[in-house]
């Protein structure tokens, strides 16, 4: 029971991170019908940004940890969002209107480019970040001394993710920006007829997706303490699986899918085998694609138009 609870905490933390990345996949898919294979690498860039801005906060003499983390988050979001915008502008926008396969290949190329770019600039070895947030709460203790621990960092990750997701859902459902975004998802020509700048809305989608992935990147760097240029590949695939599991195109689906993948991974490594934890996530991808390709919250297209 105690062990189960510990895995629940770990799984939710991991799931929060996957969920944040998955939103970027699902939004881009929703608006231009393309799987942005470079999105995992955007997340990786966000993780490297965390280390870079950590060093800068050190140089600036910011020693108060909450402020340092805030500065790291905000700057990483801004700079990673710039990467997101640039990639869309130069790798995808020129291909709009051509075959879907062209954009997909461009995305894969972009992914390889980003990995090599970071490897060249930052080296191939893992980068460490010293622990910034330590300690936690002992939730429960078993007779044999096993302690269920909820670390402060886990609390931060879950709370921040929750706040971002709530804020983001409000943005999409309540604001003019959100309406424009949804209008472009549903009918771009009609949106343009009503005065929506479709290109700009697509750019904003990439910017938002990248900013959320940057948060995930910063959190992962704080959580694991080490990163390398290759982390975007696996995390990206898992977040993509989360987006498909939740129903690609559905934002709530991406969040739910992320949490599920995190939990599955945590329990799988706890009760079966750590070595094969990635297999669990991808078996799910295969099963979902075969039996419920529109995911848990997605709907098969049956709308009257």
């Amino acid at each position: 029971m105690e062990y189960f609870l510990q895995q629940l905490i770990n799984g939710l933390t991991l799931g929060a991170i996957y969920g944040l990345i998955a939103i970027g996949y699902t939004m881009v898919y929703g608006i231009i019908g393309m799987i942005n294979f470079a999105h995992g690498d955007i997340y990786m860039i966000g993780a490297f940004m965390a280390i870079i801005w950590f060093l800068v906060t050190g140089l600036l003499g910011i020693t108060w940890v909450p402020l340092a983390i805030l500065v790291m988050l905000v700057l990483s979001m801004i700079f990673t969002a710039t990467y997101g915008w640039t990639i869309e502008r130069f790798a995808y926008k020129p291909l709009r209107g051509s075959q879907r396969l062209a954009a997909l290949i461009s995305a894969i190329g972009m992914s390889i480019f980003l990995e090599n770019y970071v490897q060249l600039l930052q080296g191939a070895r893992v980068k460490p970040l010293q622990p910034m947030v330590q300690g936690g709460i002992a939730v429960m203790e078993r007779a044999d001394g096993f302690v269920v621990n909820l670390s402060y960092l886990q609390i931060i990750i879950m709370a921040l993710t929750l706040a971002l997701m709530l804020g983001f859902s409000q943005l999409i459902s309540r604001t003019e920006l959100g309406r424009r975004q949804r209008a472009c998802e549903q009918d771009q020509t009609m949106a343009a007829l009503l005065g929506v700048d479709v290109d700009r809305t697509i750019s904003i989608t990439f910017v938002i997706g990248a900013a959320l992935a940057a948060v995930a990147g910063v959190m992962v760097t704080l959580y694991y303490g080490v990163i390398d240029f290759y982390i975007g590949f696996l995390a990206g695939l898992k977040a993509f699986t989360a987006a498909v599991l939740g129903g690609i195109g559905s934002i709530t689906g991406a969040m739910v899918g992320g949490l599920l993948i995190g939990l599955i991974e945590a329990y799988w490594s706890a009760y079966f085998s750590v070595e094969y934890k990635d297999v669990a996530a991808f078996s799910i991808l295969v099963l979902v694609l075969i039996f419920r390709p529109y995911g848990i919250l997605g709907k098969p297209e049956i709308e009257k138009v």
Partner: protein
Amino acid sequence: MLEVEGVHTYYGAIEALKGVDIEVREGEIVTLIGANGAGKSTLLMTICGSPRARRGQIRLRGKDITQAPMHEIVRQGVAQSPEGRRIFPRMTVLENLQMGAMTAHPDNFERNLGRAFELFPRLKERQHQRGGTLSGGEQQMLAIARALMSEPRLLLLDEPSLGLAPMVVKQIFQVIEQINREEKVTVFLVEQNAFHALRLADRGYVMVNGRIAMQGTGRELLADEEVRTAYLEGGH
């Protein structure tokens, strides 16, 4: 108000408009009739920039808009209720209307919304329902109301009576007339329902195979033998 001059539009290699000239003057209701596939919808969409005219010129109050970005054209005072209505299916009625109001001044929103609900009381009852779940007639009302939310000077309507019960058709035509008389909105109306349209319109054009084959006042065209046999036989 609107001048279309020698416009050619293509879909790939297919020439859908083969040199179209049309003029719509301020305050008029002008109708365009023609058989299926004549190019009527293509003309309305070309005016709004998608597809683009490959040759020719489109002017709005003297200003050349042939190459203007699509999302800028509505800011010049042109709104369209397009073929197929194109309601955003996963947005509520209210949200669809908010989309229509995007380019209008926010201060006028409540007034324009009240006006839309006055013209189509059905929409008020259903304002929180999703667009995709409305009936065909309700969707048509929403498409027209949405176009009006931008406070257009020129309203382009593509077959607003298509597939609707005679009662609803009558209501829609009444609203078109009302908008034109009371709000001085110029109307360019594409219709299969030639009898109704020509009776309502000040002037009309007949399109055949991507070209304007005939033009005249509504009365003249209604009386014309060719028009009667081609577009009115068995009608009304």
